[in-house]
């Protein structure tokens, strides 16, 4: 064994504490340099192995909680800082539009108009302080309600921007301050109307993209981390809008928007907005349900009578509700919550079982119906907003 072979053996085997062959021992006995090298490596190895594990400081958890709270505060602060300029811009734009209207409008309307504009401005500032999510998948119900709000608004086309603010502005100030306590449908109405007014008054070039304040339903529809715009084109919510487009159904959905009427548990609501990535081509429905269940970590059952269905789905980081709605629509099924589970089942026949179907514990659940409830959960701070993954944290690649 020469010195080179001895060094290689030492570097390779010292960590394993392998027994030294006789020829190595013989070489070390005669070669001082190799003996020193062997001693050096063994000493370093022993020193590294002897390092004791230290206990974490006792108050580490308490400190962590303090940082968690302060971080939550910091997260809110930039939101103000970031959106306040836009809120001011929106308010200024509205004020400018109001000034023009005051100038050209009938004199008798001046006082009333300015009061309403001020209220609208205040409301717009109030609404703009919350940063919008990145997603842009609109809730069918929100759209329907927005249309209804615009139908209810007063004024012709030339005065539309301000006239649309009349409805929300006419609400009592006290009710505005308690916006979080108002029913989500009312909030959606108000926000949509104000946002439309701001967007139009700011001009077509810069208004909608910047000043648009999403409704609660949009917040719910967009997964906080990855925007729902990453969903493929096959997950188009428009058919659902058509399905819910009837006045009677919208009215029924609005009646059910109180938290008591939405029978889904927080677990189900959280799971429904969880992003899923599933690609299925003409797969058995049971397999599709199983894949979605695993992807969203929630139990989804399929009624035994519907096992023969097929599903075609291309979802990439789309919220579970959108994916579920897609396969439910393909098979003529509805989504219903059952405790902490979801069920895909056939809809009740309207003529006979309508009342039971829409009010019982297995009431069908659609995006437009649970979206406000999901948004409530998120807006009330019960669920944390998900920031972009930190650069160092491999959150999505584990």
């Amino acid at each position: 064994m020469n010195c080179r072979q001895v060094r290689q053996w030492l570097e390779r085997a010292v960590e394993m504490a392998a027994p030294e062959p006789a020829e190595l021992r013989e070489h070390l006995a005669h070669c001082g340099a190799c003996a020193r090298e062997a001693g050096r490596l063994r000493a370093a190895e022993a020193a590294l192995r002897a390092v004791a594990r230290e206990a974490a400081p006792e108050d580490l958890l308490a400190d962590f909680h303090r940082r968690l709270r302060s971080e939550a505060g910091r997260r809110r602060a930039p939101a103000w800082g970031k959106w306040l300029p836009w809120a001011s811009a929106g308010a200024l734009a509205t004020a400018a539009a109001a000034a023009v209207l005051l100038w050209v409008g009938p004199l008798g309307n001046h006082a009333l108009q300015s009061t309403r504009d001020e209220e609208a401005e205040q409301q717009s500032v109030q609404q703009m302080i919350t940063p919008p999510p990145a997603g842009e998948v609109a809730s069918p119900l929100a759209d329907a309600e927005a249309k209804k709000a615009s139908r209810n608004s007063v004024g012709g086309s030339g005065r539309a921007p301000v006239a649309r603010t009349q409805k929300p502005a006419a609400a009592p100030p006290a009710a505005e301050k308690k916006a979080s306590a108002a029913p989500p449908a009312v909030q959606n109405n108000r926000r949509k109307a104000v946002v439309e007014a701001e967007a139009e008054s700011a001009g077509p070039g810069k208004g909608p993209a910047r000043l648009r304040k999403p409704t609660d339903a949009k917040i719910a529809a967009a997964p906080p981390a990855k925007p729902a715009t990453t969903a493929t084109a096959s997950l188009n919510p428009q058919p659902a809008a058509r399905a819910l487009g009837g006045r009677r159904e919208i009215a029924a959905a609005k009646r059910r928007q109180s938290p008591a009427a939405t029978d889904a548990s927080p677990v189900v609501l959280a799971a429904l907005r969880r992003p899923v990535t599933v690609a299925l081509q003409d797969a058995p429905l049971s397999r599709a349900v199983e894949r979605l269940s695993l992807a969203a970590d929630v139990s989804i059952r399929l009624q035994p009578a519907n096992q023969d269905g097929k599903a075609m789905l291309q979802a990439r980081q789309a919220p579970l509700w959108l994916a579920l709605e897609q396969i439910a629509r393909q098979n003529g099924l509805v989504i219903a919550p059952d405790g902490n589970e979801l069920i895909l089942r056939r809809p009740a026949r309207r003529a006979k079982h309508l009342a039971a179907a829409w009010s019982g514990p297995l009431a069908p659940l659609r995006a437009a119906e649970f979206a406000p409830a999901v948004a409530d959960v998120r807006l009330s701070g019960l669920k944390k907003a998900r920031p972009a993954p930190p650069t160092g944290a491999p959150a999505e690649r584990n």
Partner: protein
Amino acid sequence: MPASLSWQRSAEARGAMPDLSAPDEQLIRSFRAGNEEAFDRLFLRYQDYVYNICLGILSNPDDARDAAQEAFLRVHRNLERFNGRSALTTWIYRIAVNECLGRVRKRRPQPPVPLEDPQAARLRDPGPQPGDGLARAAQDQVVRQIVAGLKPDYRAALVLRYFQEMSYEEMRAVLRWSLPQVKVKLHRARKAFARAYAEAAEAEQPPQEETLR
């Protein structure tokens, strides 16, 4: 879904806290259902490991404390998106290592701290010394200081291999290196450490021991 699992999830949704020995998956589910106490249990379960990783790489207790908290903040922020493809421990350790390496790379490289501690004379005898806790702690401090003087990747390799006693496979998962990369970097790290350790030991030797062999 099995009936027991279904019941378990229902209980978690009602706010019931899983018991202390609950597996990580159960605590994660409970946390996702809104139970912050479940995260505290995960924190207490892994704080020693995370703190030791941070202390090993950064070598400064204050920095290690700060980095460990930052790592747990990241875990807290991202736990809802943890998809379970790797073990939770792997994921947490990876976050901690990334946090520490990020800090190391941001600050200027520091030269190895000179060994001025009189206890450093014991470097030549690094074996266990029962009953001599102070010497043991001093010895550990010396080793940590030498490790802190190495390149960031070498620090991470040594810390995970020796301080955390991870296998090559675990190191590969945490560091996201290939297996040959793990072996090569560990080998180089070990050589660099041995060189620095020997130099430190020789610097502390009295002149008459120079020829001792």
